[in-house]
């Protein structure tokens, strides 16, 4: 149980792929114009991440270390193709919205990074959990960013019109960088404050 909570907090907060590791910035910047895109992209990445982590963890003794990167890419690409075909068939609107960023999941640094640094060293269940929570951390982060940019840039949330006022700056790519920077700053500021409080309370106990 301890290990479980450690992996969970690692994926969601301590090593949050978007705001802490700054990985996968390309879809983060391009797709956060709407909150729904964030959920779609996040869940697609989560699925690929879990599957590839499990498979790589299973095959970690088989794959020679010299060719591990091509082998990982091959495994990841297989699952991305599955996701792509499924989305194209069943949710074509999301498939169109994600566009080129769906096949680009193959080279998403989060997935390759977790394969390299976690799945190739840890047992299968841990790797699956790591994939799940890393993916959820990514999903929550880009959905939040998408929500903020959608509210400010389009005056809507999840496609529902809220009001007629919009600041187009937040819908543009400059606004994407701006929102991203503000989010990273706030996330790290809050984490820093919490850690400081923890340290203070530890000192008082002693």
């Amino acid at each position, binding site marked *: 149980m301890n290990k479980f909570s450690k992996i969970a907090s690692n994926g969601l907060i301590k090593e949050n792929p978007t705001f802490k590791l700054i990985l996968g910035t390309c879809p983060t910047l391009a797709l956060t114009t709407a909150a729904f895109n964030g959920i779609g992209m996040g869940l697609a990445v989560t699925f690929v991440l879990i599957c590839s982590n499990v498979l790589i963890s299973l095959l970690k003794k088989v794959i020679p270390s010299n060719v591990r990167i091509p082998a990982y890419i091959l495994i990841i690409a297989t699952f991305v193709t599955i996701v792509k075909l499924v989305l194209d068939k069943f949710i074509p609107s999301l498939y169109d919205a994600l566009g080129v960023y769906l096949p680009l999941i193959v080279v998403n640094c989060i997935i390759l990074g977790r394969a390299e640094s976690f799945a190739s060293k840890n047992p299968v269940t841990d790797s699956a959990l790591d994939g799940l929570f890393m993916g959820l951390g990514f999903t929550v982060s880009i959905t939040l960013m998408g929500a903020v940019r959608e509210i400010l840039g389009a005056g809507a949330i999840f496609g529902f019109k809220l009001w007629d006022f*919009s*600041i*187009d*700056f*937040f819908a*543009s790519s*400059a606004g994407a960088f*701006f929102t991203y920077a503000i989010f990273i700053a706030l996330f790290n500021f809050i984490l820093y404050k919490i850690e400081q409080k923890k340290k203070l309370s530890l000192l008082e106990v002693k």
Partner: protein
Amino acid sequence: MAEFKFSQSPHIKSGNSTRKVMINVLIALLPATIMGIVYFGIPALLTILTAVISSVGAEFVYELILGKKFKSILKRFDFSSAVTGLIIALISPANYHLYIPFIASVFAIIVVKMLFGGTGKNLVNPAAAGRIVAFISFTTIMNNFVAPNIACIFDNVITGATSLQSLLFDGTRLSTLDLLLGTGVAGCIGETCKIAILVGGIYLAIRKIINIIYPLIAIAIAGLVAVMLNGFDFGVFLPAILSGGLIFGAIFMATDYVTNPVSALGKVVFFIGYGALTSILRHFTGYETASFAILLMNLLVPLIDKCTLSKPFGYKKAKKEAK
């Protein structure tokens, strides 16, 4: 930062302070402001008030949040945020959409200036950045210019393309005198009456706040580049430099001490770049691009500074050691 003046060594002590400089800039902006209010009436006045109050307010609120005492903020207050607010208002069109100058001013002060460390530490000109955010965000409103006409106060207000836009799109030109005085020219509040801007510029030059040579270089280069882009038609020279915000930007925005290169050569490069970029971008986009050109050149300043460093007296270049 108030005690520092940006120049190359050797340094000499002077009684100048940021506050004095900024008050002088405010005085220099006064003619353009008055002419703007005369031409555009109440909307112009409201826009100016909103922008100035919200930028000064934003600076105070930010410092109060940081936990500074109100008295110490007041003591350190150097009017630079008031200048930023006034410039933002003068380069916006006059209308009743007062949230636009508000958003532009707050963005300029909080994001561009205060987050980078306050006066003297901003990377780019806050007013230019604030205007660009407003320009990108509210494209239709920001491009809907009102033609100033004193008779218009009683009539319906004419809206339409600016002289710059009609120059770029249809090739129609207003008379040079009209452009110089700003009568019947649609445009931003402070940018229409060039005479008022030039008066302000001459005041600044007399008080030695700016060196008038550099803005003149920028304006001349912009005109020449426009002539070249139009197939060496020298009739374009005057309309090109008298339209839009080129002169205003050259005198009041590009001369900002903080975002200028240090050396004289660097400044020349900076202003040539500003003039040329303004004309080139105007030609290919069809929009007023003076503030974009200022922003781009501001970002190049560290590079220009590095390339135009002068050699210290008696300095010899170290020979490369043979490997």
